[in-house]
């Protein structure tokens, strides 16, 4: 699969929100205004581009069955894949922490723009989900993993900015009382998901 193909597929066809519901919590909680949701989207994309390739390397050289052979031939039969979850989440939490410090040091403007979102991202399911999908699909090199991370992040950004724009517009609409707020956001997301299904089956 070419990189471009993979990119388009991860943005539109396998959209994190509409196809897998990943990162829904922050998606619903933060999507009240376009500006903040754009900030969160950028932060998520950023973290995905960094963590997915790193987790790819970890998976390739540490976790997958038999890959410890590069250390010593005695380890050729070791299978550490059951440690996947704990290692991935530890790496993600650590990288988010490091990113937060680096950004604070070198770009205070970006830091204040991303603000509280950065620490929240460690527990965003889209990040861990993306790494787990990467492992499940067995990409062949780091480039593919990075492109997959970038595409998934941009797809997520697209989704959250889209719903934020719609929610800004419907603020003054007459919505039945029980449906106001979260309820209608769910249904709108469902409708957007149906629209995104049009991309299914596209072959590039």
């Amino acid at each position, binding site marked *: 699969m070419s990189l471009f193909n993979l990119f388009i597929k991860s943005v539109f066809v396998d959209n994190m929100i509409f196809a897998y*519901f990943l990162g829904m*919590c922050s998606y619903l909680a933060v999507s009240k205004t376009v500006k903040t949701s754009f900030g969160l989207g950028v932060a998520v994309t950023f973290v995905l581009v960094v963590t997915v390739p790193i987790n790819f390397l970890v998976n390739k050289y540490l976790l997958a069955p038999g890959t410890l052979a590069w250390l010593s031939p005695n380890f050729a039969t070791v299978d550490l894949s059951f440690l996947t979850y*704990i290692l991935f989440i530890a790496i993600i939490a650590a990288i988010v922490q490091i990113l937060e410090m680096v950004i604070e040091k070198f770009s205070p403007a970006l830091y204040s723009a991303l603000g509280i979102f950065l620490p929240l991202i460690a527990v*965003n399911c889209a990040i861990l989900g993306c790494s787990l999908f990467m492992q499940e699909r067995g990409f062949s090199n780091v480039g593919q993993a990075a492109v997959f991370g970038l595409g998934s992040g941009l797809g997520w950004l697209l989704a959250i900015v889209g719903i934020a724009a719609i929610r800004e517009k419907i603020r003054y609409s007459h919505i039945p009382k029980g449906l106001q707020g979260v309820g209608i956001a769910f*249904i709108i997301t469902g409708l957007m998901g*149906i629209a995104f299904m049009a991309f299914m089956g596209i072959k590039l």
Partner: protein
Amino acid sequence: MSAIKKLLIEPLRKANPITVLVLGICSCLAVTAQLKPALVMGASVTVVTALSNLIISLLRKGIPSRIRIIVQLVVVATLVILVDQFLKAFVYDVSKQLSVFVGLIITNCIVMGRLEAFAMSHKPWESFLDGLGNGLGYSLILVIVAFFRELFGSGTLFGYQVVPQSFYEAGYQNNGLMILPPMALVVVGVIIWINNSKTESK
């Protein structure tokens, strides 16, 4: 007694983690196309929430607050690994169906949310019950959504045919849209709607 009851019952309706607090939607909707994986997922989340609440509550005095998120993540991740290995050993087909979503229990906001909001400041037994109650509230919604999606989407429940053959002969068709991801969102939206209007009218 009534306090215990309250901890268990409240998350089912009034403070339901999904419909009222809107937590933990992330990993749950994708598994509700059929009842069986939904039930297994609900049970897994209940176990993880209850036990992680218990463990964190036992440790709560020893955890420095600066690194509590990492400590919580490690405890939760360990429990999820146990659950994952258990599922792989005993219900392999369902575990294959759930794929990455078992792992995503780690970042399920219900687990983290209860740890932060309840277990860090309450006694072990209460925390355990609170985790149990929230897990059950989560499972309840999961099962309701899965019930409707499987019934209308494939005409079955737990894989058994419930829509009689004569219906199909008379021209009844399964609604294929119900199995696709977007309808899960719409179904949850409707459940929230019903739930909200019920609690308001009281």
